């Protein structure tokens, strides 16, 4: 089931909230936790019924291993074996479902063998719930996790707001909230922030990401089909994809946070206006924050982090980014994307190290130039992330950097005389293959990307808006009068209401989120 589907908005969500509210009022927390876990499994089953047993099996297995590790810790016995066993099985399952075909294909290519390539359907959310549980096992082995009951652990892993595409949640932060006083109480700040975040997320997905998708698809599918691109088309497609991916994934994350907030559970923030970052280091502190945090805590730091000298630090960083890239998908494009970002991070860290101790005024640039540079670098990286193959990605980049000339879109051909007058001496050429997507819809592309870029770079982000609308409610809480809420500005109320209406009007039957494939 998709958050942006009518069945979710009209049936699943109201029913889940209504029953949860009734259970919270009249019964203890136990039935409520069971209900939400069942609702979460139903949510998952409606999208991917065949993979429910895998999810349940994974939950039961990790719960059992967690118990075993905890009991050995209590008895002061070694736990490394159990931890290795648990993590190995988790990774094996992930590998079997996500990387089997990739491994066999590459093995065939390297060895010349002709092993049959397995065709396995990727279970939705498998990367997310596997990582969530690996973190749990590691923390249990470190003695940093409490022992939870099966019901709450099941709800933690299967919790529908985060199940299929994150954010990657941490047991220490989330499970205690399933017993907190505000859990499913539907208090004013939660209702305000939750509905506000959900509306903003839906609008990001439906009004920005989905309309941008045809432009990105046209360019990258064209590149995959071997059609030569113009410079304009390449940048148009890459820019469209940069914005599509951001609004798609951050829209999903906003909806997840909003839904969870409605239930009185705070999920970790996943995005913080990443395209405003002034460096790649800052970008990774703002983009997919929960995954970055997971990779830092459970990969980079265990590898040694920055404690063993600069060379080892850079190697750790590169390894982390390569594996982070591979986590996104079983393809070399993702590995190259991870490596590209790893390289950017190395350069960024090296630059910082070199700059330390030097007078800042000699080497400083205006902030917006750093932001622009970072945005361009990230956009170039997305070419690998989106393209169907490395060849296609390099093709897009070759065109983007002038490898195929500087032809303008065909739709601007009528302006040739004017251009020759204004900028003489250039042999202006016009070409374009996407008659129905990019070049023939230049103005739509310009409007959409312009608006999306302005929102990404300049508008207050969703968390700021949610904080704004709940500021008084939270202030009221501290004074014991949570209902004493000042009305948010009319423009905010009307704006959110209107974008909610537009989003519903454009709600499509089947428009999955990009991160569902990971």
């Amino acid at each position: 089931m998709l958050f942006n589907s009518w069945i979710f908005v009209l049936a699943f969500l109201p029913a889940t909230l209504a029953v949860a509210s009734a259970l919270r009022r009249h019964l203890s927390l136990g039935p409520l936790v069971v209900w939400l876990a069942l609702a979460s499994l139903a949510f998952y089953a409606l999208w991917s019924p065949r993979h429910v047993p895998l999810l349940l099996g994974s939950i039961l297995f990790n719960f059992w291993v967690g118990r075993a590790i905890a009991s050995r810790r209590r008895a002061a016995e070694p736990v490394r074996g159990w931890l290795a066993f648990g993590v190995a099985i988790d990774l094996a399952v992930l590998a079997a479902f996500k990387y089997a075909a990739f491994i066999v294909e590459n093995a065939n290519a390297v060895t010349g063998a002709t092993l049959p390539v397995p065709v396995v359907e990727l279970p939705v959310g498998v990367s997310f719930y596997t990582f969530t549980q690996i973190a749990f096992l590691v923390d249990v082995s470190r003695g940093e996790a409490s022992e939870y009951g099966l019901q709450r652990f099941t709800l933690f892993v299967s919790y529908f707001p985060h199940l299929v595409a994150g954010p990657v949640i941490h047991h220490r932060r989330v499970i205690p909230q399933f017993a907190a006083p505000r859990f499913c109480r539907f208090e004013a700040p939660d209702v305000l922030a939750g509905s506000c975040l959900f509306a903003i997320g839906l609008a990001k997905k439906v009004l920005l990401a989905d309309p941008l998708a045809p432009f990105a698809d046209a360019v990258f599918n064209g590149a995959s089909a071997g059609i030569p691109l113009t410079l304009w088309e390449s940048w148009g497609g890459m820019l469209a994809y940069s914005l599509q991916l951001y609004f798609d994934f951050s829209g999903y994350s906003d909806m997840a946070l909003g839904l969870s907030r409605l239930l009185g559970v705070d999920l970790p923030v996943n995005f913080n206006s990443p395209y405003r970052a002034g460096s790649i280091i800052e970008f990774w502190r703002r983009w997919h924050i929960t995954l970055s945090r997971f990779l830092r805590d459970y990969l980079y730091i265990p590898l040694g982090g920055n404690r063993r000298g600069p060379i080892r630090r850079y190697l750790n960083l590169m390894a982390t980014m390569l594996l982070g890239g591979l986590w996104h998908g079983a393809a070399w494009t993702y590995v190259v994307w991870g490596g590209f970002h790893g390289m950017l991070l190395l350069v960024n860290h090296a630059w910082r190290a070199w700059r330390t101790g030097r007078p800042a005024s000699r080497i400083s640039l205006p902030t917006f130039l750093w932001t622009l540079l970072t945005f361009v670098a990230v956009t170039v990286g997305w070419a690998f992330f989106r393209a169907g193959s490395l060849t296609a990605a390099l093709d897009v980049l070759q065109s983007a950097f002038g490898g195929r000339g500087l032809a303008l879109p065909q739709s601007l051909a009528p302006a040739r005389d004017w251009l020759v007058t204004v900028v003489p001496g250039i042999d202006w050429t016009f070409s374009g293959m996407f008659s129905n997507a990019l070049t023939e819809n230049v103005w739509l592309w310009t409007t959409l990307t312009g608006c999306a870029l302005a929102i990404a770079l300049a508008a207050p982000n969703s968390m700021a808006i949610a904080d704004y609308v709940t500021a008084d409610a939270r202030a009221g809480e501290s004074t014991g009068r949570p209902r004493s809420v000042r009305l948010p500005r009319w423009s905010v109320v009307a704006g959110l209401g209107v974008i909610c209406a537009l989003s519903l009007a454009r709600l499509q039957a089947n428009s999955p989120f990009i991160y569902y494939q990971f």
Partner: protein
Amino acid sequence: MNFPAAAVQHSPVLASRAFMAFVATIPFLHALAPGPWLPLPMLVAGLALLVYLALGQAQRYVYFETTDLLLAVTLALGVAAFVLRPGAVGQKNINHTAALIVSVGLFYFWVRAWLRVARVSLEQVGAAALVGLLVASLAVITEFGLINTTGLYFSDLIPYSADELPQIDVLTDLKRPRGLAAEPGFTAMVFEALAPLSWLYLRRHRYLVLPAALLVLPGFLLLFSAGAILSVVLAFLLILVFRARSGTVWAFAGVIIAAIAAFAIFSDLAGLLFEQVVGRKLLDLIGAADATLAETASRYDAYTTAATIFAQQPFGIGWGTVSEMFASGAIIPGVPQLNSRGVMSLYLEVLVSAGLAGLLCFAAFLLLKLKALARRSDPQATLVLLAALTVMIHHAAVLEFWFPMLWLLLALGDYIGDSSHARAMPAPGPIVGGLPAAQS
């Protein structure tokens, strides 16, 4: 009919709850009606009247004001017109007259009395309006999702009391929901009436404003009702202009108009809306469109024929005569035939039925009510004024006088505006809890 006093006693709490139920059922203009002439709000109001008549309370509270005479004269002129004209009085004449008298009697005179007998506070009215509004919004959003995914309307699932349920596409491939009424425009009038009233409650429960807006605005906008949008904008601007005390307000009104104009000119969405919702109808009405929509064609026909009827019968042809001629095919000498069951405008219907004198009386009645509200500066009166003005403007394109919205708003205007009646109440109490102390 007399209930034993011990069995049923007058309870203000129960009475106010019943009144709130009446307001909350207003969205059910056609859905779930027990009979074709008995929508749910009418059933609730009628039952309450019967109970209070039996308790002997209703008679004590129903009262008439001087301005009500104008309404009575309008009604009488429409009756006189068909009684006095040559030709048989048809069934539709009787039906329409009865519907008009019952609607006015029940939704205006009785509701005005009911507010007093039940000692309903304005906050209670607002709470009930909010419930009704949320019900209407959920219905619209749900039906929008249903029809655009499965093709199913609510009327395919639950009974509706209307036999004509038009299906209209908008923005190329979207279907317009009807909500709990037979047409989207009717449901839009529910929003116009209840949204301002709901503020009587929300102003003290502001944490609900944003969640409510996230349902109500989509509910209203997904109806794609051009008449409703124009009515709301016009009503806002009129109130702004009437209440303007500084250049800032005028500037604000100017900015709104400029923003709407810019949106209309430059936005693709507005272009589609203009083409298919507002502008198409306007172009059709002035005969400038290349092709006509069935809806606008019949509206154009209705308005031009109404003008012809008025020109030939300036004293009116009586309530229900247009409908009678359409239903039975009866030909009345000197009255042009109209190819629909009504003239699609409350004011044109009054003009055609009760003549120019009837329309003047009716207009005077409405204007006096508006004037009484406009004189007050308290926010409650402004909210009721806004709602009443919007509904009245929209009634220029909607005939259905048996809807409760307009009459309820007029009754509410009297209730909050006439403090002399409050003082004359047999059992004075906090009847208008939301008002300043001086008013109660």
